[in-house]
């Protein structure tokens, strides 16, 4: 069955017709062209489709699109305002915290959320938080360094 849902995507209202068994990931990528949301497994294992849903990070492949009705979704493409990168994005660049870049949007959106919640994290807390998102290129160290380095901007 199909139904029409309305939700906010990166601050703008969107109306879209979805199937009952369609995931938020599928709708974001295939129907709304929100291609900053990547996917490497479609079953909740890789974390690459992480978005903020009603202010909390979720794997969008694990959310049915109908659940997003009336909700608020923010992706990596939606956290910078007027082209001004948020501190964690700048820090990823400085630290060379990515290689192929396919997982980067997920790490960026998740760590931006994380630092807002916990601007004084320990290294272990960062690593624990990130362990649900896979990266095959970087070995994670520069990602963790980038997040710890960016934390100071979230403390202000």
């Amino acid at each position, binding site marked *: 069955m199909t139904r029409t849902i309305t939700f906010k995507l990166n601050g703008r209202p969107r109306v879209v017709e979805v199937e009952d068994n369609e995931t938020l990931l599928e709708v974001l*990528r295939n129907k709304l062209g929100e291609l900053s949301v990547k996917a*490497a497994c479609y079953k909740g294992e890789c974390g690459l489709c992480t978005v903020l849903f009603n202010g909390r990070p979720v794997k969008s492949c694990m959310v049915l699109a109908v659940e997003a009705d009336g909700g608020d979704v923010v992706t990596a493409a939606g956290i910078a305002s007027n082209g001004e*990168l948020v501190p964690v994005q700048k820090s990823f*660049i400085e630290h060379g915290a*990515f290689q*192929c870049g396919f997982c980067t949007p997920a790490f960026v959106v998740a760590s931006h959320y994380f630092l807002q919640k916990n601007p004084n994290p320990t290294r272990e807390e960062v690593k624990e938080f990130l362990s649900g998102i896979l990266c095959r290129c970087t*070995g994670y160290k520069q990602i963790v360094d980038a997040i710890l380095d960016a934390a100071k901007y979230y403390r202000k």
Partner: protein
Amino acid sequence: MSSSQFKIIGRPVPPPDLYEKVTGTAQYTFDMDFPGLLHAKLVTSREPHAKIKSIDFSKALQVPGVVAVATGKDFPYRLGIYVGDRDILAIDKALWVGHPVAAIVADNIRAAEKAIDLVEVEYDPLPPVFDPEEAVKPGAPILHPDLAKYTISPAFKPVPGTNIANLFRLTKGKGEAALDSADVVIERNFRIPFTTHAYMETWSTIAHYKVTGDIEIWTSSQSPYAPRYLTAMSLGIPVGKIKIRIPYVGGGFGGKAGILNEPLVAMLSKKAGYKPVKLVMTRAEQMKSMPIVAGYRAKAKMGFSKDGRIVAYSVRFLFDGGAFADYAVNVARTAGYACTGVYDMPNAYCESITAYTNKVPTTAIRGFGYPENHWVLERMMDIGAKELGISPLEIRSKNFLRMGDPTSTTGYGTPMRADQGDLPGVMKTSAELIEWDKEPEQPKEPWKIRAKGIAVSLKGPSQPPNAVDAAVIKFNEDASVDVLVATGNYGQGTVNALRMLVAEYFDLPLDKVHLTWMNSTEWNPYTWQTVGSRSLFTVGSALLDACEDAKRQILDVASKVLKVKPEELAIADGKVYVKGEPWMSIPLSEIVMGYTFPNGQVYGGPIIGKGKHYPAVLSYLDPDTGQALPINAETGHGEPGHVTVFYTFGSTAVEIELDLLTGEVKVLKATQVYDLGRVINPLTATGQAIGGLVMGMGRALYEEIVFDDTGGVANPNFSFYYIPRAKDAPDDIRVKFLETPQANGPFGARGFSENVMIAIIPAIANAIQRGTGVEITELPMTHERVWRAIKEQRPDLIEKAMKALKEWKG
């Protein structure tokens, strides 16, 4: 770290693709869409080995949205880079559980997904063979009865009538017979399982076969020319009719080298009425149906003199290539020819067989035979050290290749040169960084122990002699430069480093050197492939040749204007000036489109530099002797050729913590030391060293493809195929680069992005052995495998640890 003689080289320069990547605007083939784009899905075999009797699409065709269907009979082509054994859909026989046997094209992905479940395939089962040792025995079921008819690259030797996809043998000195004259001979068996690359972007390809016969392809390949050539050859289409475009690529690690699904998608586009078609693998399809990484069994013998010199070495690798080994034959061959590693061995025999079995096919992998070869060699060195009672550093130092020593791997009689790198220095630095002489501080839990281990590696590109490269630079009106190179950018940092070479050469600011994000055969000149850590060296050499070509043209124009000889001119700060008289100058921007004299007359024209690199020192290895064929007398006085254009030396040392009760191994500290010749960009070089270390830890500790009773992949997902996560990566990684300039490298540089995952694997096992005396010779070193090895070899340690735990709990 880097010499101050340079302005750009040696600076930590973030790659220019960063903004697009952190904002999620970078586009990958996976993301691309076109008006009217159709979607394909594959029907795969449920039989490991069977004749295909019939394929019935009648129900599938009823699904609304289905546009076209295809079977292997529609496209009866064979392809591959070295041994052309692959089909694009099973032609008449299915060779493994997961073998694509049919394809559906639909106007939406959901329709295609629904339709593949409704295709009815009838099979006539044949006896399968899953074990490589069984597969090479006489009487085994033969997977490729037409092997003799396949297109084979000259350096390879399949054995028709058997399941041997390639047979490579190398003999040095008296070979294995010399083991008899050794004082101590050690003999061990080794195993590596199948693994997978686990790049995050799965194989994604879009093809548009046009009514004109031109084919446009967008694909997540490592570089564009190899898939174009192989597609053209396999389909019998002129190469120039095919255009391959590569946007950003989500990782490769060798698994996107050679050819992906380009020929299949191109033919599906034609079959679907000349409409563009997209095929993206799911993770499960990627791991069950597309080529992954070969495993092996190996038997090694090493003979030492009493004082620890290697007298003779023999190793026999039996690689399990799965059902197609088109690219993996060269991984196995490379493990064979590089068998002696960094050591001077007077006598050696190395054999490497690639066997066909009814399992998922295999292909190239980061490291390409060297992680495989070093797993045996670097373990044998530590086992030898233990048997002889000398230290791991001493046994290595005693046997290192020294300047002038002939190597088995650079071809007979090709001596080591001083500019190839500081091999003893690499190990010494690695040992210093891990504080080798200091006993590790033991953890407070008495059932855990800490220990240190070390390994040394070498790696060179395993490229054929005809792996040639070109580069073009175009000056723009504002004296900025467009760099045109076809080598791929999937995160390695190479194209950024190439941009830095050009900026350094012309003394331009980095923002005046531009790269194209979309790599295409249409505008970027030929490069053989982006593989083997070769591009900085080979494409970099071509690019500097292009810079010289452009410089000649610029100085020619400037000499006409400034009325001095070209050799008296130099370029800096956006100007051409007279050496010693810098006030005599012209801005580059007034030259690069031709100089306009006061009377309006123009001299020169647009400056475009072209350059090339070809590895004149390489020749084929004779597959029976492992010897490089002589180079033409015209260029090399008939001396033997080389097998690789450079070698890079590396060393990894680790401090691990081992839980004796669970077998869990944690890497607490690790070193990554490489002699890079010249560090072009320390930021991205460090990124490679760290990323490769953790990828190597995955292969060492966690990763293993598991097969079920039908030979099918039982763990095609990230839950049961575990790759390292943030919590597994060590915090304390000590990276250091030595710089012994390579005489013929661009600014002295060598490549290294595969070497970074070689030494870590044996280093961990060597640490376990030093801490416990327990020998591990099989990968991965999972908790269970390590615990079982301790239980078998040192049960006393477990008993002691149990006792300590009880006392601890008190």
